[in-house]
């Protein structure tokens, strides 16, 4: 792989241990000539404050729910000019909640864009409020005793849009994320990647442990790496954990995060059952 400069410049105002910074750096390594569309969220800040800008690419900041629609318009304009740049929507799980119809609409139209949801499992930019992807029992400022509902499976929902490429990724496995971007960039049409992005202040763990926590999520099977490019397959890092016996450290994963403080053994049992179900659900797609 040729060595490229990061599109995320140093000195950007992200928090210590920010997973978005990792993701954005990987993005620049994989894509040749991206234009980046950013709705409201943490990355609005990460991208810098005028007159400084931290992403070395054309960046368009747009309203919260609008990003995939704006990207659709840009795709139309580029098509008319024969411009081949990759149009990337870089959003959080908040943007994917409020802009769900917008993502869905762009997917249905099979717009020639890459949508990346850097999923830190809550509205972090406004100070840790519960989102559609917040983990069951996770404490946020709007679920102070723990979230009472299950998270939605955004990537699987996007899969059901019958688009050419859908994948999950993790900031704990950046080479895998880069491979997926490399694959996605060769495909035309709507491509979707949900990037698991553990957030130190939001999940209450030390800022030196972002990658570690992200890997724990994969090893205990709570976050599953897979991709669909016509056929669903589990990615190498997750493949061993198809075998339930090989999944390790769920308790440690949960106990390492302040947001799960006070969680008891029966809760962990329930979470384990839900993880099993998620694997079975995806295996059914794998075997389809």
């Amino acid at each position, binding site marked *: 792989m040729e060595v490229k400069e990061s599109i995320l410049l140093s000195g950007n105002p992200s928090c210590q241990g920010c997973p978005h910074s990792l993701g954005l750096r990987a993005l620049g390594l994989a894509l040749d000539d991206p234009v980046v569309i950013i709705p409201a969220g943490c990355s609005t800040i990460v991208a810098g404050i005028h007159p400084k800008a931290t992403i070395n690419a054309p960046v*368009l900041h747009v309203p919260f729910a609008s990003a995939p629609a704006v*990207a659709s318009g840009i795709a139309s304009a580029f098509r008319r000019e024969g411009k081949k740049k990759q149009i990337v929507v870089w959003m959080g799980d908040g943007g994917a909640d409020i802009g769900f119809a917008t993502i869905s609409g762009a997917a249905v139209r099979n717009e020639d864009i890459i949508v990346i949801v850097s999923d830190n499992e809550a509205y972090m930019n406004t100070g840790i409020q519960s989102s559609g992807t917040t983990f069951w029992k996770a404490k946020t400022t709007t679920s102070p005793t723990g979230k009472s509902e299950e998270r939605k499976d955004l990537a699987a929902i996007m899969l059901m849009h019958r688009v050419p490429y859908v994948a999950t990724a993790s900031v704990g496995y950046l080479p895998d994320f880069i491979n997926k971007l490399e694959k996605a960039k060769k495909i035309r049409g709507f491509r979707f990647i949900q990037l698991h992005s553990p957030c130190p202040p939001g999940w209450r763990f030390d800022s030196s442990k972002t990658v570690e926590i992200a890997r724990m999520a994969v090893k205990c099977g709570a976050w599953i790496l897979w991709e669909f490019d016509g056929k669903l397959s589990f990615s190498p890092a997750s493949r061993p954990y198809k075998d339930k016996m090989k999944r390790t450290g769920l308790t440690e994963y949960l106990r390492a995060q302040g947001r799960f403080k006070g969680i008891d053994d029966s809760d962990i049992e329930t979470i384990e059952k839900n993880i099993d179900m998620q694997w079975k659900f995806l295996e059914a797609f794998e075997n389809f």
Partner: protein
Amino acid sequence: MSGRTIMTGNQAVAEAVRLARTEVVAAYPITPQTVIVEKLAEMVDSGLLDAEFIRVESEHSALAAVYGSAVAGKRSFTATSSHGLLYMYEMIWWVANARVPLVMVVVTRTIGPPWNIHTDHTDLLTMRDSGWIIAMAENVQEAFDLTINGFRISEEVSLPYTAGMDAFQLSHTSEVVDLLEQQYVDEFLPERRQSYVFGEEAFTVGCIGPNEYTARLRKDTFEALKNTEKVVDKVSREYEEITGRNCGLLEEYRLDDAEYAVVMMGAWSGDAKDAIDELRKESLPIGLLKLRYIRPMPYKKIQKLLDGKQVLVLDRDCSMGAGGILGVEVKNCVEATNIIAGIGGIDVGVDDFIKMFRVFSEGKLEVEKNGVYWWPPEIYDKGMR
């Protein structure tokens, strides 16, 4: 298609969009705007219009998509109405603050509840403070002309442009229209220009900035919209040279020697003109000042034209707790009496105007204590059960 023909407002707008060589259309259907969307989709599908048509899933995305195509340098168009306009409201402000030229037609329709698909103007006027150039058509011809003027003016001042036209009265009513031949439109409408184009160089648009920077940008936009007055004057004169039709900021009708002046906008102005003709036969010195643009609002011109006259402002809209919106506007420069009528699409015809204007000129219009007169009184007196 060129020359004289018969078509509805919605069809005429679609023709104008085609003649303007629009490159990207994104729109979501809503009664009574739907036909515009359908016509444009047909034109794109049949190759009559060489453009991209984005079948968005909502109005918010319609304006978001044309924001994207316009900021990336393409002539772009959308259309909406009432609740669709309110649903895209966030994008309305974003597009204006981003100084991106594009054109949107608003088929004016009452805002619910109760559900009501008929015309009033409150929806269009919710855009008043946003930084858009806002025009309003009286007839199908004007809807066509303003749409074409819109692209030119919008691109010249780097502000978005909207033209309103009344639900059904224009959108679905066939009238005689003079279309323009392509070569004349091409001559009038040069290649698109805009203050910046997104997508090539590594620069950032819309990021967080210092407060002083935001304040400066707002003042810039304010001044650009104020200056648009001169641009509308210039562009409408050019258009008049080509077509013989003036689409300037204001239209005077028998106003010169009038002692009584009516101020209004939209389709019902035509009926008001007929009423004025009738009253003139009775030697009542009454005339009309039609507002073709609400933003920029040419206060000085209005003040000059209305100086010394008894002024009646007719609103088909309401600013709750204040009055008719045009009433509030016109009272910025002259004293005026304000009537709100035609809300929810209630028919207001020539006879109504004759009655209204007569009562006004006789000084018998009893303004309620809240300063505005709701017409016709019997609707409000009886109450509805």
